[in-house]
Every structure is written in C-alpha cells, then in structure tokens.
C-alpha cells in the first residue's frame, strides 16, 4: 500500500529497501510547511483517489526500478496533517549513489505530476482552500507526457 492514514515512519521504509548489496540510500521527505503563497497555514487535509494512487505509484516504482538499479520505497499519508508532519517519503537504495539520487528525485517528481492526491489548506485567517485549484476553469490541464498518459490501445 502506497497510501496510509498513519504517520509515516522513514526508518521502516529505509529498512524495507536496505540490503547488504546496496550501499547508497537517497531519501526524500516532504513535510507540512507553516506557510504557502505568503499565507500562514495551520494544518491541512490530504485526500486521494485511492485505487488510482495505488496503481500509479506501482507504475512509477516499476518504471524507476527498471530504468535504474534501485530498490524504491514510497509512501504518502492522507487525512489531517499538522505542521511538520511528513506527507510523503521516498527511499531509493542502490549500489551506486548516483543512481540512488537520480531515482529518488525522479520518483518524487513523477508522484507530484501523476498521482491523484489533493490537499486542502486551513489558514490562520479561518479560510480553507484546495491547493492548486484557486482558479478552477484555468489551472486544470490534460497530462501531456507519454509515460503518464495512455490511450485504450497502448
């Protein structure tokens, strides 16, 4: 499962990919910031299209593991998160640190680009807003990259 409602445990993810052959482990942890777009954030709520998150994360991990010699662990938390809580964790273990870094970076970028998760920020002034959707009708856009988009026949 790539999605969880529980706090993320980086040590557990690390242990899940560590092995005696893989000496380089690059990780990324995304935590909830106390500000966004100049506004003070109190907390936020992540929601997701769960079944597709699982499918798309599995594809991203499989792509990375076939492109580089790496073992990937990936987890995203949903539900209510407080400032400082970890929302996403990626771990990439490899025999070569270059591949570990490149794969780790790739996975987090692809997750942000392709995985259907949304967040609603609760601000200090009492307002609540879906992040990235401030201008419904203008901001949405069809995903244009081949690896992330498939027609029925591909």
């Amino acid at each position, binding site marked *: 499962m790539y999605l969880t409602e529980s706090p993320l445990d980086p040590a557990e993810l690390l242990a899940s990919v560590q092995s005696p052959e893989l000496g380089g482990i690059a990780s990324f942890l995304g935590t909830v910031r106390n500000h966004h777009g100049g506004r003070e954030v109190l907390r936020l709520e992540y929601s*997701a299209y769960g079944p597709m998150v699982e499918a798309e994360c599995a594809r991203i991990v499989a792509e990375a593991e076939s492109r580089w010699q790496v073992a990937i662990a990936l987890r995203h938390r949903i539900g209510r998160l407080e400032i400082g809580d970890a929302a996403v964790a990626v771990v990439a273990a490899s025999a070569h640190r270059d591949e570990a870094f490149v794969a780790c970076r790739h996975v987090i970028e692809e997750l942000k680009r392709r995985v259907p998760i949304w967040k609603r920020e609760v601000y200090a002034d009492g307002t609540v807003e879906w992040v990235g959707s401030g201008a419904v009708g203008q901001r949405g856009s069809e995903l244009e990259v081949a690896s992330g988009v498939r027609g*029925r026949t591909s």
Partner: protein
Amino acid sequence: MPTTVAPPLTVRVLLFASYADTLGFDSVELSLKAPATVGDVLDRLRALPGGDRLPPKPLCALNLTHARSDTPLAGGDELAVLPPLAGG
C-alpha cells in the same frame, strides 16, 4: 434502409476535491451514445450546473490510468476527472 444502432454506453464518472465541490457531487452514472470518448463525458459535465467552471482540458483517468480527451470509452468504464494534483 435501416442502420444498426449501437446500444448506449454507461460509464461511471468520479469527481474529486474542488471539482466535486464545484459540481456538487462526486460520482454519477452517465449513458452516452456509442461511440463516445472522454471528451464527450466532459461535454456532458459542462452542461450541468457549475460545469462551466471545468477547465478546457482537465486531467482525466480512465480505469485508473491517465487518459486523453480523445480516448474512446467502453461500457462499464470508470472515468475520473482530476483537479490539479497536489500530492507530495
């Protein structure tokens, strides 16, 4: 001369986050005249109250995979219309 009329297609449409707020529901079954594409569903959604606020080419997923507006539909498909992603 009589022509063969294809039976209508039924697809389940899912909305999330701001789009669900905008249209006021998060799931609906739609019947469409076959053949139909993702874009045809979007046109139907745009005709609903609040639907005019959908972007010209929203991100869509067909059966858990990203799809384009010209992707053809089959009966029983699950089509999700996805607001700008904000994971990570």
